[in-house]
């Protein structure tokens, strides 16, 4: 079978000693930053971009992917032990995970999360292995109008389902698109918004923006909080769940794997949405929903499984369509561009070594993560003692030296510092830098697809209605926007009536 030949090629790449080392480095860093305060996967990948620049393309992507799915495992640890979610997708895990810790069941909570994550991750990689070649054949036929629709949908979902305010996120996405227009026009070559500065002709550097907004901005912000290191007093025992625990959570893990996989493939999917959806599903299916929030093991197993499955299947739109569906994957997309590789439908044909090597490395990475997260979990818990001040200071030095080393030019240090201050102000005023960076990456692809659509359709917007994919997406968007507008108005009206009633009652 073809898939097995492909996987064979993939494993021959992934088992090269250097690549094995980088999978390992990636998943260890991923688990560690999931535990450490102040650094998330996005910031970490931003910090490491200049270093990956010097690496072989396959190794670089293998390592960065490892950081991404590794952080999904690591983020669980602090959610369960301290009720501090290590990354956004683990917020749901705090509901029942921390309750289990209070009942002295921290061990099984962490154990079932690691096992669920492994199963969810592996199911998604198997899905990726068999579906990717089929989808790539379909993807070649996807026209520019559909691309426009998919990207618009992705941006809408990221802005509306994110944690911040929707309007602020939309505003940031628009600013990201605007920043991406700086530089030469891709067709006519005219300089746009360069203000006569020659080094802006090539546009803003993605690395500088990402390192500034996520790296420096996030570090400045984390230094502002005077949190002291948390002492772990919980003893972790019986990390291997009992037979009853397995019986209770097997259904949740199976459902979480499927649900996570499907949600991850959608634009804007991956992470938070899938874990929330899985929690809601388990609670609805439970015979006794009141157990949820009081230490139900299914409430930990399902969401943890789903978030790992979705963060893996989110690689499908990235590797096959060339559209990153969330901010972390946008960073990976940037890393690939730095290496001179444009992800898209032809990647699987042009660079099978990268495509299958990365997929095969995920099988290996997940096995490593189970070992790191079950027998070796004690080591990572010790990392909670590292103080934010020390970590942030050294990370800052990595940013400064790292950005200098890209072009050996102090000018880049200034750019990073300026974007860092912007990033800090954005966090302080509640503007999420995530949509900005995602839109900055999508901007050039979106503009190209838009202009191609206009050329094909002879300047008519009708193409977005006649193209079936785009018609479906824009139709669904219009319906959901109308629906949310109406339901919001209804809620406002209801609230007004309610306050009038209460005023009258006085």
């Amino acid at each position, binding site marked *: 079978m073809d898939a097995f030949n492909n996987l064979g090629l993939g494993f021959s790449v992934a088992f090269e000693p250097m690549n094995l080392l980088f999978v390992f480095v990636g998943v260890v860093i991923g688990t560690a930053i999931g535990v450490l305060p102040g650094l998330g996967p996005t910031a970490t990948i931003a910090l490491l971009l200049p270093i990956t620049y010097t690496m072989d393309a396959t190794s670089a992507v293998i390592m960065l992917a490892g950081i991404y799915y590794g952080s999904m495992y690591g983020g669980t640890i602090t959610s369960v032990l301290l009720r501090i979610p290590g990354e956004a997708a683990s917020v749901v895990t705090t509901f029942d995970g921390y309750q289990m810790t209070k009942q002295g069941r921290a061990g099984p909570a962490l154990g079932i999360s690691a096992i669920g994550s492994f199963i969810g991750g592996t199911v998604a990689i198997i899905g990726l292995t068999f579906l990717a070649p089929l989808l790539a054949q379909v993807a070649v036929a996807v026209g520019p109008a559909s691309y426009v629709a998919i990207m618009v949908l992705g941006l809408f979902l990221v802005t509306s389902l994110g944690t911040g305010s929707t309007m*602020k996120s939309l505003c940031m996405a628009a600013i990201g*698109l605007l920043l991406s227009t700086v530089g030469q026009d891709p067709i006519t070559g005219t300089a746009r918004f360069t203000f006569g500065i020659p080094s802006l002709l090539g546009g803003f550097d993605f690395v500088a923006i990402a390192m500034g907004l996520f790296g420096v901005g996030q570090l400045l912000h984390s230094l502002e909080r005077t949190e002291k290191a948390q002492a772990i007093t919980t003893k972790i025992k019986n990390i291997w769940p009992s037979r009853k625990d397995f019986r209770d959570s097997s259904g949740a893990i199976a459902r979480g794997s499927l649900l996570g996989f499907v949600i991850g493939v959608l634009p804007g999917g991956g992470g938070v949405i899938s874990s929330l959806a899985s929690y809601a599903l388990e609670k609805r299916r439970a015979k006794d929903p009141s157990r949820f929030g009081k230490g139900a093991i299914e409430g930990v197993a399902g969401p943890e499984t789903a978030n790992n499955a979705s963060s893996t299947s989110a690689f499908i739109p990235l590797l096959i369509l060339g559209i990153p569906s969330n901010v972390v994957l946008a960073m990976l997309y940037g890393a690939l561009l730095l290496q001179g590789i444009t992800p898209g439908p032809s990647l699987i044909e042009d660079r099978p070594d990268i495509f299958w090597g990365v997929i095969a490395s995920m099988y290996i990475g997940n096995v490593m993560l189970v070992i790191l997260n079950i027998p070796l979990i004690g080591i990572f818990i010790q990392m909670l003692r590292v103080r934010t001040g020390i970590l942030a200071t050294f990370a800052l*030095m990595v940013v400064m030296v790292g950005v200098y080393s890209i072009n050996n030019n102090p000018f880049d240090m200034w750019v990073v510092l300026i974007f860092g201050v912007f990033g800090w102000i954005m966090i302080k005023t509640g503007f999420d830098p995530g949509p900005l960076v995602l839109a900055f990456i999508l901007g050039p692809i979106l503009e190209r697809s838009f202009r191609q659509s206009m050329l094909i359709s002879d300047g008519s917007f009708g193409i977005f209605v006649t193209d079936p994919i785009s018609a479906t997406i824009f139709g669904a968007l219009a319906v959901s926007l109308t629906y949310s507008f109406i339901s919001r108005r209804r809620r406002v009206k209801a609230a007004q009536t309610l306050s009038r009633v209460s005023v009258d009652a006085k």
Partner: protein
Amino acid sequence: MSEDTLEAVQVAEPAPFATAGRYQGRFRLVPVVLLATGFAAVIGSWRLGLGELTNPGPGLWPLVVSIAVSIAAAILTVIPDIEAYEKWTRRTTLLVGGVLSLVVFILLFTALGFVVPAFLLLLLWLRVFGEESWRLALTLAGGGTAVFYVGFAVLLGVPFPDDIVAGTITRLIGM
């Protein structure tokens, strides 16, 4: 911890400014700046030349995008979203000093090379923002500078500007 998480945690807490009506202007500051940027970009795009829909000029796409920026910023100016705003604390003022120290670092870096400014920056940050003891701060700053210098300049071969300390040491050994 990722930025999303921090925000999610803050949303869960009651917004500290929700009741402070007289500070409303504060929340409009960023949207107004963004709105001005949007308007400037609309004019800039117009000047670039829009072309035709069948044959778009360089300004057409930027115009679409800058209109989007203006609309979103205008909505935020009229109805400011005050939820996730954070308080300006004493530590915030301290951090402005931190940013200035980075400015000094970059200036010194171009003039004196890596070793001296790196040591000073690490020391300052560990002592002031990390609130570590002098002893630990000095040790970590000294060790950290050495590790960074060896890692980047020696192992990775990054050409730092001429270094007064490392340069002197190399000359002394060379003599």
